[in-house]
């Protein structure tokens, strides 16, 4: 590695606070959610308490999601979430190729990060899917389960409560898978822990040629 190193201030304070609360909240939601869905009666903690934790964590993550929306609305962070139609599929494919093959064969990263580019294309797509599709759906369906009178009663022959519950768990599952991959991919960096330091202190190492 004979490239010079540089740091960019990628993650402003509000984003780091949002992310911290979000990460802790979602982990709690996943743990309590899985507990609820498994074992009859005797989970780690008593069922009722587990439910309450899940409800409270859900409310906090939902409010926190507003922080994310608002933050992106008023700051320039939103620009990192804009997708260009050109090479819509080619760009993430190239990045995937890099992860699967190139990085082990001395290839340079095809989309080096800079002030203009905070995420590589794959990362961008994943963040958009999770933040603008999965999380909103999980919040809406969660509200539906909490206030079941708001739910449409039936779609064809299937109960609305059931559809809402299934949507909720399916999106919850999707977010869990995202989290696993998110954590793993974040460990690909200057050193495995480097990116995790970034999301705490805000400064991201980039490699300059």
């Amino acid at each position: 590695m004979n490239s010079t190193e540089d740091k960019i201030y990628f993650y402003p304070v509000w984003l780091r606070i949002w992310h911290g609360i979000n990460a802790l909240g979602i982990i709690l939601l996943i743990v309590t959610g899985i507990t609820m869905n498994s074992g009859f009666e005797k989970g780690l903690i008593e069922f009722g308490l587990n439910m309450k934790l899940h409800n409270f964590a859900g409310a906090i993550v939902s409010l926190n999601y507003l922080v994310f929306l608002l933050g992106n609305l008023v700051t320039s962070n939103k620009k990192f979430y804009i997708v260009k139609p050109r090479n819509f599929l080619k760009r993430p494919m190239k990045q995937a190729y890099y992860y699967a093959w190139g990085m082990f064969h001395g290839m340079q990263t095809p989309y080096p990060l800079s002030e203009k580019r905070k995420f590589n294309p794959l990362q961008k797509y994943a963040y958009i899917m999770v933040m603008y599709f999965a999380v909103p759906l999980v919040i809406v369906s969660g509200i539906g389960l909490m206030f079941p009178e708001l739910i449409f009663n039936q779609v064809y022959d299937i109960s609305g409560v059931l559809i809402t519950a299934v949507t909720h768990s399916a999106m919850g599952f999707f977010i869990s898978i995202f989290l696993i991959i998110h954590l793993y991919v974040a460990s690909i960096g200057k050193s495995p822990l480097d990116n995790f330091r970034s999301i705490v202190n805000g400064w991201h190492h980039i490699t300059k040629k």
Partner: protein
Amino acid sequence: MKVSLSILLFFLCLSSSVRTQAQYYDTPKEHDCLKCHSQQTYSFHNELMGTDDKKLMNPYYIIDTLGLREGVHKQFDCTDCHSYDYTTYPHNANLKLEPLATCLDCHGGDESFASYQFDKIQEEFQKSVHYQAYGDNFTCAKCHSQHTYTATARNSNSILEIVDYSNKMCLSCHNDMRRYGLVSGQENPALIDVHSWLPNQELHFKHVRCIECHTAVEDDLMVSHNIRAKEEAVRRCAECHSENSLLKASLYKYQNLQERAEDGSIIGVLSNENYVIGSHQIPILRTISLLIFFAALGGIIIHGIFRIIYKK
């Protein structure tokens, strides 16, 4: 003299106004009808013989006075529904022919009871095995005594009480040869034998309503009324036991509203402990999610191994 008259009048008014809003049934022994219809025996003056006779009351005509006083129709007097001619005994034989109002006669299309959805219930009930088999002879009153019914599932906050109340409505007939025979003319199959495949029957019948297994759930009805043929009854243990689906969808909505009614604050809403089955109820989704999970994990492990080998 005048003063005492007006005092008398005042008390008359007072007592009659109290009477209109409160209980007809507080003192059964003095009530026109309950003096006979709440007792094991009744007496009447035999005008023909000039004697006072005492006889046994038909047990099916004895009305539970506690139930009466709590029932939804407690502010009715007997003769609001039954003919006033019943006040004389022996009752006129033609009174048997008197038509009695059904639930729908009074509640059908009435806005003030819209939340109960009487018309929808009627519609659902007409699809049920009972109506299919016996038509209009199987009235709502076969399950719902107009005398004592209370909307328990709606107003109680104890699941055990709700289950008990609801199951008694079915058992009053299915466990009673005579009532059952009254509708069907056949013998009732012993429920214990019919459900012999269900372990721990007693516990189940205390914790789940008959209708939980025997009806098609209608989300927008608090109590689903479409009792289906036995072939369609829930028998798969997994529908309740596989996951922690403490309550099925119908009861879920209920409990949730219920708890909100008691504690509408934000904390109250968040503290509710109700749970409804999610996607793992659908086996295919469960399989798919396991596949995705292991694919992701496998990918990560393989990639990780390569990273270690190449020291990336």
